[in-house]
């Protein structure tokens, strides 16, 4: 047999390490996030012992974390084959299948993992996630609850339960479970460590309450509606937020103190996350405060953008704003984002101009658009949400996947048609095509996971019907 070049430990010296000691080294590297190193160590082991199940499995995990999903799957499938139904392997491979959209395989392996290891709550947790994604919400809740019976301190299972309950509209219980999101180990902390308590809704007017504009920008737009309600209880407010959403928050409540740096935040008595306000408010599906429109474009900006748009729009053409992808770092981005190409049914709408509001790495797809409908790409020119709002003000409708632009149009009371993945974010509830959060939103739900073709077709059909020339543009505009 060919001698294997001697691998070395991570301590810089070149002392060869016996093969048997390599695996723990690799496992350490994986835990420490040194993925390339783990990868190379596992490569050495597998070169000599290509069927070593633990190494195959760990190499699969490393490959998965490196973003090489197909390779990960190959390694992990082989690990299961040679390792004969090891529950750990099954528990982990189901997550790879889920990521790749192979939900049947995910369900099969996750179920098998639970059968083999009925007392492992993590297996049940994974199964709960898969059921959620398959839109089997009752099953998802059952699995999460069962996992929590075994160990009620599992934040992931609580969070999964929260999402499922919220999606079903069982918000009272859902909000309580939703609080566990801050405990999830892998979640980025919302704010620096503090000894101050979380606000519980009590009123005080002598000290400052700190609000944290947490989660994505869409959440900030959606939950900022609660700020006036908070201000009635605690008039001295400080809001920690990203610079991008500052123009939005300024509109919500006059004189709001906004902070973009933690060290500038004044002393405060208690803090609350914007995403926690529905719980404190006691929001139910039937009492959602929806003071729409609560965001407005600046008239000066509108004048500038309207002139530009008018110049670029062929006479008598409708203007449909489109966004096809969200922020790629969102953990569900793979499911919620589409491609411009998936919007093909809109490309042949008669007398319609498409206006791209797409920002970020997917924006360059605009350059490859060759559809029939005129297409104007404002993505590169939009600098702030103020620009986006001004453009939205000049559009007939915004068609988007589940992104902040949808929230923006909706909060402005403009028609927003939002396309959702089969298993959507909890806030959009189940089945309905409207939402208690925003009166001008129309929801289009995916019927087959990760397939947008029929969804965009329904959107196009809807627009065609709506734009019927027999109906005048004034009449069809929804409330504003």
């Amino acid at each position, binding site marked *: 047999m060919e001698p294997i070049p001697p691998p070395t430990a991570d301590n810089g010296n070149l002392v060869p390490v016996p093969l048997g000691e390599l695996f723990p080294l690799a496992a350490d590297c994986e835990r420490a996030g040194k993925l390339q190193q783990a990868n190379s160590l596992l490569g050495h082991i597998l070169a000599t012992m290509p069927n070593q199940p633990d190494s195959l499995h760990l190499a699969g995990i490393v490959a998965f974390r490196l973003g090489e999903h197909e390779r990960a799957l190959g390694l992990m499938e082989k690990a299961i084959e040679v390792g004969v139904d090891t529950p750990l392997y099954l528990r982990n491979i189901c997550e790879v299948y889920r990521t790749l959209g192979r939900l049947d395989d995910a369900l099969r392996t996750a179920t098998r993992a639970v059968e083999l290891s009925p007392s492992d709550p993590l297996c049940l947790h994974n199964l709960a996630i898969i059921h959620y994604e398959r839109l089997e919400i009752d099953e998802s809740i059952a699995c999460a609850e069962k996992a929590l019976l075994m160990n009620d301190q599992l934040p992931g299972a609580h969070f999964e339960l929260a999402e499922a309950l919220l999606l079903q509209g069982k918000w009272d219980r859902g909000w309580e479970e939703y609080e566990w999101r801050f405990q999830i180990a892998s979640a980025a902390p919302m704010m620096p460590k503090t000894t101050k308590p979380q606000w519980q809704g009590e009123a005080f007017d002598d000290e400052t309450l700190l609000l944290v504009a947490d989660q994505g920008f869409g959440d900030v737009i959606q939950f900022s509606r609660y700020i006036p309600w908070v201000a009635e209880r605690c008039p001295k407010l400080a809001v920690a937020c990203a610079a991008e959403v500052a123009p939005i928050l300024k509109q919500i409540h006059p004189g709001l103190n906004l902070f973009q740096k933690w060290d500038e935040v004044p002393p405060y008595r208690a803090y609350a996350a914007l995403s926690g306000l529905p719980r404190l408010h006691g929001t139910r599906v039937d009492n959602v405060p929806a003071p729409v429109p609560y965001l407005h474009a600046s008239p000066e900006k509108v004048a500038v953008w309207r002139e530009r748009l008018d110049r670029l729009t062929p006479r008598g*053409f409708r203007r449909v704003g489109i966004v096809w992808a969200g922020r790629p770092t969102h953990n569900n981005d793979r499911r919620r984002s589409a491609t411009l190409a998936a919007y093909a049914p809109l490309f042949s709408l008669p007398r319609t101009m498409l206006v791209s509001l797409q920002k970020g790495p997917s924006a360059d797809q605009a350059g490859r658009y060759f559809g029939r409908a005129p297409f104007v790409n404002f993505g590169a020119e939009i600098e702030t949400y103020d620009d986006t709002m001004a453009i939205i003000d000049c559009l007939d409708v915004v068609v988007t996947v589940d992104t902040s632009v949808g929230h923006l149009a909706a909060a402005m009371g403009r028609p927003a048609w939002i396309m959702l993945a089969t298993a959507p974010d909890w806030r959009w509830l189940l089945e309905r095509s409207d939402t208690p959060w925003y009166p001008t939103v129309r929801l289009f739900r995916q019927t087959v996971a990760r397939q947008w073709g029929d969804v965009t077709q329904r959107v196009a059909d809807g627009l065609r019907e709506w734009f019927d020339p027999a109906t005048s543009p004034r009449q069809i505009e929804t409330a504003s």
Partner: protein
Amino acid sequence: MNSLATQLCPCGSGLRTVRCCGLNTAALPPAESTRHLVPLVERALQAHKQGANDTAERLCLDVLEMAPDRPGALSVLYQIRRAEGKMQAAEALLRRLVNFDPNNFPATNELALILMGKGNLGEAEVHARNAVRIAPQNPQAHNLMGMIMTEGQRPRVGEYHYRQVLALSGQRDPILLANLAWNLKNQGRMAEARALYQESVDAAPEIKQTLLGWARLEEADREFAAAAEKLDKMDKLWPNDAAVMMSRAVLLGREKKNDEALAVLDAVAKQNPDGRLGPNELLEKGRLLDQMGRYDEAFADFAEGKRLARELSGHVYLDQQAQELTNRLRNFFVAGRLKTLPRAGVRTDVPQPIFVLGFPRSGTTLVEQTLTAHPRIAAGDELPLINDITHLMPRMLASPLGYPEAMAELWMGDQRAGLDNLRDWYLQKVEQMGILTEGAVWFTDKMPLNETHLGLIALLFPESPLIHVIRHPLDIMVSAMSNHFTHGFFCSNALETAATHYMRVMDLVQHYRSEMALRYMPIRYEEMVDDQEGTVRAILDFVGEAFDPRCLAFHENRRYARTASYAQVTEKLYDRSRFRHRHYLEHLKPAIERLGYSVD
């Protein structure tokens, strides 16, 4: 002594390099100090006049060794080298002569003619304009401008100068009349052109170029019988003449008599000393074979035609230049910078351009012919103006930088209107070209590859529709192989370079479209063929004009399309050129790879 000092100039003048193409003009002695050489120059002139060329040459070389700027000696040596056929040396000497003696009309005239003969119209124009400056009343000066403007696709300007020749000379020279006729034919004024050919031939019945031009006019105007009659006459006067036979083959091809056309070309080949065809004949033959379904032979002729063209013209794709320009454009036109640049305002007092963009052979002629059948859209054809602006820009904006970086001047307080000035220059040129017709509110500019300058165009004409004609790239490649065009840094001289340039330009367009909001509409050639009315309606909708049924009968639009596509656009929309590449997949392999496809 170093070798440079003794070396003879590689141009072949017979002078040392340092006295010829490597001359340092700053180090020249003042003309006064070499006046004693004047008698030598006079002797050289005398000798040359008497045919004693050896003596004349010797004297010129001696004089120019001491005084490299003596016009008389340069002139005589130029004539000697030219007579010897040493064109490189002749041109170098003539350029120096014009440089040192800028008011020398005959030399300027001669240089303009040489440059025009080489196809270097840009430089030829510079000298032709000088000729008019030197001698505004000289018919020949205007004749130069007439020829160069006609060749340079500005026939209205050319017509003006030809008519100046007629007025200044007080004569109706038959060759001039034929030149004017050719000019009018290029403007689509067929009847006027025909009458002038008639007058020219009545006065001088046996001038081959005149008769050939007339035959081409009739052929382009689909008067095939009249064209054949001219060619028959020429056959009798000049039996087996290659140019006449080539015209015959083209005519037979248009009449779909492919076998006969092929036989004529074979006969041309046979009478050539090497038994082969020239580049143009080879492409013609390839096109005939293609029509006949003999694809492998056709492609072999295309490839050979391109090879010969490269060999004869010396033109190869200017890869570096093309790459440099596209990189600079890509770096300049980015969203961040575009925010800081002004846009030209939109003029409402004159017709506005519709840009028909696309790679050569994409169907731009078809789209233009269709659109310009509309009464409110005038036909501008291939306007060289955007390209001209890229050259003019540094001067007009008083910038030390080139295009596109010269637009940095737009940040200066005194150049904020710079783009408006460039826009007005463009519109004024358009007006001078006489392309604007009564009732037109638009005109087309279908210069291929203008999409390279999409960013500039959008700054100059922010509201103008940008119609980008796209077509299956492999079909474009087949078409690029079967036709000559010089657009795009000579990329069409080889299959691979055509593919490279295509990719470069398409990537650049994608870049512009990602960085800017454009009034841009892509039109697929294939859709135009499939659904002509739908496509035309969509374009007119986009432009903002009402549909006009005349656009569908564009092949009855008698306006002659000057470009290589003229024969196709006079046929009803045809299916044959769609996915034509399927016959050539094997031959297209190098292009396919470059275009990022794979052969399935």
